[in-house]
């Protein structure tokens, strides 16, 4: 709730009649009726009548994660369908294999279990696991390249911290070092730089969205990945919008000498921070999923790619000569979440978290990109200002830089 909204509610309470117990009681009536209706539906089962007799159950298992250990293969399985599913057998590479199920063989709707299969997997080779239900339906999971899944320990956390530093904190800081150059630019130069930033951010938005949608498509249907993603985008956009409004109001009240540029830089840093958290989450998750080893090229790619994020943060405050401390703070806000994300992704992998954070990052970036675009436009309309040559060049250069560094990441 924003402050204005809170104020409105407060004043409303003062003038309108008090909410009595009776009115609360009446408010519960629809809820009680709803409960009765649900009870009736469960008792009579109208859907069962539609389905008819002898209709096989709807079976849908999602294999959420495969972990390779010294004991074999460990699978996390979720019942994503409406009916209970009984896990009867497991085959690995077309061979029935011994297995144990942590939570028993029968999974209810959204029930989970962990299957441990003592299968002698082969390093560097592919394996296909099929979970067979009591009706003989099979659900497959492919391990493309078998590598022992790293177990979370101190070394693991340290490695993630280092990766976070390399791909998040240091590149953003490096980008900030362009400040002296940016501060010597004229109005047109700054506009080009800001347009470049918009280009970078729009590119990031598209990239994050397509990744999130891909991840959502692979998720069990019950999790409603696409809805989750879009809700996260909207939530982040609105939250950042109201956060920006609050920051401006506070600054105005405090009559500090802060320029709108600083607020914008802070918003960009927060947006990029959210995005980098999602990115860290993705890196950690790739490890946790047992599908990845982080390579040289990838680390270099991320590093180059993220250096441009630092540039995006300094562009709006180029004229303000901010202190080193301010710069450092902005850099940390933008970069540090990568480390936290990598930890979270590596330790508690969940596709739901992945989609939510990619969505939050995308929403934040969209808000920030629009803010900068408005600043560049000034008195003019957005389309009018962006149709001028310098701004267009900046925008396209932003796309170009992201595209080129993106190639390195694959």
């Amino acid at each position, binding site marked *: 709730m924003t402050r204005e909204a809170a104020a409105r509610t407060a004043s409303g309470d003062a003038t309108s009649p008090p909410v009595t117990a009776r009115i609360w009681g009446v408010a519960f009536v629809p809820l009680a009726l709803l409960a009765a209706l649900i009870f009736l539906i469960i008792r009579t089962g109208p859907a069962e009548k539609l389905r008819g007799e002898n209709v096989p159950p709807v079976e849908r298992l999602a294999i959420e994660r495969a972990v390779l*250990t010294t004991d074999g293969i460990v699978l996390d399985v979720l019942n994503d369908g409406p009916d209970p599913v009984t896990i009867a*057998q497991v085959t690995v590479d077309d061979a*029935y294999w011994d297995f144990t199920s942590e939570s028993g063989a029968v999974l209810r709707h959204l029930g989970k279990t962990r299957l441990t299969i003592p299968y002698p997997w082969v390093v560097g080779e592919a394996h296909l696991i099929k979970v067979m239900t*009591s009706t003989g339906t099979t659900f497959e999971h492919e391990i493309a390249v078998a590598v022992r899944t790293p177990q979370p320990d101190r070394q693991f956390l340290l490695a993630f911290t280092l990766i976070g530093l*390399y791909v998040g904190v240091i590149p953003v800081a490096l980008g900030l070092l362009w400040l002296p150059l940016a501060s010597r630019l004229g109005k047109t130069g700054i506009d080009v730089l800001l347009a470049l930033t918009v280009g970078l951010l729009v590119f990031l938005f598209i990239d994050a969205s397509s990744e999130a949608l891909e991840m959502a498509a692979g998720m069990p249907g019950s999790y409603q990945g696409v809805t989750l993603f879009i809700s996260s985008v909207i939530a982040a956009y609105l939250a950042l919008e109201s956060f920006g409004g609050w920051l401006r109001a506070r600054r105005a009240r405090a009559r500090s000498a802060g320029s709108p540029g600083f607020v914008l830089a802070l918003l960009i840093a927060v947006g990029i921070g959210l995005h980098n958290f999602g990115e860290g989450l*993705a890196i950690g998750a790739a490890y946790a999923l047992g599908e990845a080893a982080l*390579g040289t090229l990838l680390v270099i790619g991320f590093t180059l790619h993220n250096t441009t994020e630092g540039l995006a943060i300094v562009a709006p405050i180029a004229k303000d000569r901010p202190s080193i401390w301010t710069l450092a703070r902005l850099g940390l806000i933008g970069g540090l979440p990568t480390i936290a994300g990598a930890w979270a992704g590596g330790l508690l992998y969940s596709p739901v978290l992945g989609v939510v954070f990619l969505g939050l990052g995308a929403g934040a970036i969209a808000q920030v990109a629009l803010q900068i675009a408005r600043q560049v436009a000034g008195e003019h309309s957005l389309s009018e200002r962006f149709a001028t040559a310098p701004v267009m060049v900046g925008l396209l250069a932003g796309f170009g830089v992201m595209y080129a560094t993106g190639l390195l990441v*694959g």
Partner: protein
Amino acid sequence: MLPVTRRSWLRLAGLGSAAAATLFGARRLSAAQDQSSHGAMEHAAHRMGPVGRVSTEAFNPATYLRAWNFSDLAPEERVRYYKETPRPDGTLLREYQIVAVDREIEIAPGVFFPAWTFNGQVPGPTIRATEGDRLRITFINAGSHPHTIHFHGWHHPDMDGSMPEHQVMPGDRFVYEFDAEPFGMHLYHCHAVPLKRHIHKGLYGVFIVDPKTPRPEADELIMVMNGFDTNFDADNEVYAVNTVANFFMHEPIKVEVGKLVRMYLVNVTEFDLLNSLHLHGMFFDVFRTGTRTTTSESTDTVMLCQGERAVLETRFRYPGKFMFHAHQSEFAELGWMGLFEAAGVRRDT
């Protein structure tokens, strides 16, 4: 920036990770990598095969092994399905009642297959006659689809059960009548269309015709190599001999050292072109289709195409357990594997 499309890179670049660590001056990272990505599994004796046991209440593969003409039923029950009447020429009139019925069967522990069956079992009951006997088979279709019985052997085209007009509708019946010939190891199966489905759903059984001069006395075993496509993707998920995956791994077929063992083997697997039987530590004589009583083929692995069959004869030389399985390792690991257990004192045969 994000992993999903980059996983291919992640994999490709995997080996470069140590280099990456060095590049950024992080030896600890590289140590973590080495430890985590290159250790494989610690090996113990690997336990394979389906988990659990199948209930033998409805169908026991071991009983099926040594039963024909409903010999597994109590006498008062048996007369409902099988009757033999001597004929003037010394042959027998053998009358059978075969009923097609839909039934769910357990083919691997906890895995239930919606089968179409003859007399509620897969494979259907074994029909066994002597060359020259008259067979009269009353077929009742109590199933949900049109079915037929198509016998391998000499018979009039009207008795073939293969043409559209031969289909017996649900609720109808038909009487197949023909003489048992030639002697050999044959089979019967439904020939309604779609054929693949009618067969792999379970409508098949063994039809043995003995020569007038009986084969030497032996311990006779009926072994049907079959498979089940449980998820209907035109590929079998379960393979077995006599329906139940790995059944004879847990309950070995008991035989006597030195005694003649005769296996009546047929391949009714669908979808796969070939199936085979390989017997460990032994050799056996092969009588293809069982239509001759002499053979020059001695082997430890016999290959049969769909619908092909053979009579195999051997004597166990040593006491102990002898594995047998399809030499298609894939089938073996999907359930087509079992054991013989020979008892007695070593006999050089």
